[in-house]
């Protein structure tokens, strides 16, 4: 077996040093009736065989690069510079562990520090952690943090929040029998969420741009929340929007959670992704997740360490702020390397290109009879109201090689009023020909 260096001679020699007659003797503590169980599984396979089998499975999927592609809703197709994938495959990054021995993990620690600095700047916040699993779990962690900060047990979730984010947050809060108020889906971005906030409210969670693509002004919501002593948690699922839209921090958010996939990380059928988590300094000690901090070594040289770990499970155990242990190490590296290449100049231009692609797509699709663009504002994603069930349209177009968007019925099966909605995203990867093909096929399908 190509991955196992020991040969039978080694094994015999080692057993004699140990003083055991056989390997099974080393397993003597296992109940005999449970040892050496039978498994209905195949035996080992060479590289070629494995690659062949998995290639066959991959070939059954239609990848985003295979034709006109307009899916978004929390995962976006962007171009990733070739440099990024090379960097994350460096052995020293790919095959390192959590930087628990900082003297020989400065590479990981320094990029985490740089990552935290970039995320805080993007979010318009004072501090950011070294990442969460993804945006949705970050959202749930933010709600739990608001609960610790305010000691209140009612969360209000906007109808513009990605319904899977809302479901994750609800699942986590329900463990504590908290009140979770989820506003109905709000395609026009016109909901009156402020009126739901009361003195019991721990947090209001609002996505911006929201799941329908609307760009929201968070400031009035922030003021209303703060008036009642609640926190405003802003969720961003498209990190490229940070380059175009006023930051949540500037609009008064207390916690910003975002999905960082768009920068440096492939679609990957939903994971692994990278959750960005930023907040105000005053909530630092209530934050979940790892933090990297600057310090010096005994010679006075600058270096970095994991810090404030007295919040974390490996030190605080049952008193920890979260049970989270892993972060998204390698995905943070992809994010920070891509962001280093972009710089502010590149990010802003990338955001503009995304916005223009969406504007052009909306204009082309909105011109079709019976198709209505629901949004007043949007960044790189918007919602169409079709004259018929959008799921059927999506299926018909997919069969013709166009991945048209996400139908409302997929995300809100409990809300039949969303079944004619189609959420469409357009990024820098979309070409004019893609838009024309999409428009032509949509016209035919309706």
């Amino acid at each position, binding site marked *: 077996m190509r991955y196992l260096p020991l040969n039978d001679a080694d094994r015999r020699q080692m057993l004699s040093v*140990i003083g055991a007659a056989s390997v099974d003797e080393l397993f003597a503590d296992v109940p005999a009736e449970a040892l050496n169980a039978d498994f209905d599984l195949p035996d080992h396979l060479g590289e070629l065989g494995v690659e062949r089998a998995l290639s066959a499975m991959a070939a059954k999927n239609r990848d985003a690069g295979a034709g006109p592609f307009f899916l978004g809703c929390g995962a976006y197709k962007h171009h990733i510079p070739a440099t990024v994938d090379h960097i994350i495959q460096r052995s020293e990054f790919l095959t390192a562990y959590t930087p628990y021995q900082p003297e020989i993990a400065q590479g990981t620690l320094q990029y985490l520090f740089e990552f935290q600095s970039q995320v805080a700047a993007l979010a318009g916040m004072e501090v950011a952690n070294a990442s969460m699993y993804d945006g949705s779990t970050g959202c749930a962690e933010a709600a739990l943090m608001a609960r610790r900060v305010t000691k209140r047990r009612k969360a209000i979730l906007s109808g513009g929040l990605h319904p899977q984010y809302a479901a994750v947050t609800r699942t986590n809060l329900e463990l504590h029998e908290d009140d979770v108020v989820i506003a109905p889906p709000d395609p026009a971005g016109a909901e009156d969420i402020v009126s739901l906030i009361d003195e019991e409210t721990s947090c209001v969670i609002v996505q911006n741009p929201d799941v329908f693509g609307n760009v929201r002004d968070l400031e009035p919501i922030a003021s209303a929340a703060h008036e009642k002593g609640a926190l405003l948690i802003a969720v961003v699922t498209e990190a490229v929007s940070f380059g175009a839209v006023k930051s949540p921090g500037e609009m008064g958010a207390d916690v910003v959670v975002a999905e960082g996939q768009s920068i440096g990380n492939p*679609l990957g059928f939903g994971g692994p992704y990278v959750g960005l988590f930023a907040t105000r300094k005053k909530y630092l000690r209530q934050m979940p997740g790892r933090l990297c901090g600057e310090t010096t070594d005994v010679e006075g040289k600058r270096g970095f360490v994991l810090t404030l770990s007295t919040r974390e499970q490996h030190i605080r*155990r049952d008193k920890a702020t979260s049970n989270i242990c892993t972060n998204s190490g390698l995905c943070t590296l992809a994010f920070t390397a891509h962001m280093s290449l972009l710089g502010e100049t590149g990010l802003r231009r990338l955001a503009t290109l995304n916005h223009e692609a969406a504007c052009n797509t909306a204009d082309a699709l909105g011109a079709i009879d019976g198709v209505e663009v629901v949004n007043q504002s949007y960044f790189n994603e918007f919602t169409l109201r079709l004259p018929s069930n959008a799921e059927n349209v999506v299926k018909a177009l997919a069969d013709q090689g166009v991945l048209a968007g996400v139908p409302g019925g997929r995300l809100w099966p409990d809300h039949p009023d969303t079944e004619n909605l189609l959420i469409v995203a357009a990024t820098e990867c979309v070409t004019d020909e893609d838009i024309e093909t999409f428009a032509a096929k949509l016209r035919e399908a309706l």
Partner: protein
Amino acid sequence: MTMNAQGRPTRSDDVATSEAPTFTGNKALQIEEDLIFEVGDFNGTGVDLPEPEGAPSRLGGMERTSVIGLPGLSEPETMRHYVRLSQKNYAIDMGPFPLGSCTMKHNPRLNEKVARMPGFADLHPLTPEAQCQGALEVIDALGHWLKELTGMPAVAMSPKAGAHGELCGMMAIKAALEACGDAATRTRVLAPESAHGTNPATAVQCGFTVDEIPADKTGRVDLAALKEMLGPDVAGIMVTNPNTCGLFERDIRAIADAVHEAGGYFYCDGANFNAIAGKVKPGDLGVDAMHINLHKTFSTPHGGGGPGSGPTVLSAALAPFAPVPYVTEENGSFSLVETRRAAKEEGEGARSFGRMTAFHGQMGMFTRALSYMMSHGADGIAQAAEDAVLNANYVQARLKSEMTTAFDGYCMHEALFDDRFLKDTGVETIDFAKAMIDEGYHPMTMYFPLVVHGAMLIEPTESESKRELDQFCDALLSLAKRAKSGDAGAFKAAPVHAPRRRLDETAAARKPVLRWTPPVAEAAE
């Protein structure tokens, strides 16, 4: 001075032994590297993007006008930055990484290649079902391997990491208790003192309280003490097996039976499943739920601290409460169940407790793990477990002459030492670990498990050759002898050859600096 024919000194004894500082601070291949904020240009960029059309914005007046403050680096600067940083890291591809409980085994590159196939890497999670049958097949196939290897009837694939898998298992237990009206009374969870910190943290995150089960003198759960603690208020136990001392819980069946008789559930922390994978089915031991760290047992890369992946197998009693989404198969065609509303009428996920993450879990880790499993096969997985246990016992046997083992007898996949051999030497566990760095090794896990004083937990894994292990053991034996010979000063100073000497963690926590700030703003503060 001894010279060769070209006048080059051939012996080092004339060369000063202390390192002369260099002008740059670099040490040959170790090159100092500033932060991107110091290297980069705040108006620069390393990407060439087309000129925008300049159309008016439809952002509803919410344009970002403030400066973000992000440097851009050209492509060569970017490459050099990260390559220099990478050279300040230790990694499994460089040498033994014997972190106990962390399972740093070889990461096959075939798995990286497979994960990057466009059909997997460039696939949107909300692609219509007909266009992602291959991805659903991967999830289903990996689930089959995991169920068969564990002997459990159901698996929740979406948990994002080990701790998230623990949460999944404990949430399923809570949901099962709620379903039979016991949730209000069964509020206590029992976990050994030696448990991973995630266990108590997870239980609390589920709204339980936690009590510690004492260990017996062999390093295992004290069965009699456990039985005393069980009662109508106990929701379940969380036990790692093999445990964090590297020992198999001999009484595992009796433990499971006692918990079940008392009306509780048995959560098994599967962090150490690699010791028994392909040899033992946890389902045969009475387990109700167990997470599997794909990034440990099935070798998806640790990546400097993630991403992980923690699918969680469930017993028939817990299966109906499994989270959404999950994949179903009928006549070779795969479907996704994404909401509680869409759940099946019975069986796995019928009374789902809800959703743990957006989308379907760590797909990129699923493809890698499946590639690992198919490569190894059932025979290779068993051989890997045997070799891992053999390697750990070999290290334990070889080091016993100079170091003190925490418990007698064979270990499983990791060997646990305490600090008795360092008594009165002035050298502590941390000093011993830091001295290993100078010898070119990543230290073992230190000070964990908490039940052993000055613990040193060594997990070599099956990836180490005998030759590599012999060198490693020779180095540790020599360090142990040096410590006993009264060389404490050198240990306290270690490491001296690493990119950084010991770092001031106290100062880092006392006055946290968690991001770069412009020098001007710093002066104004």
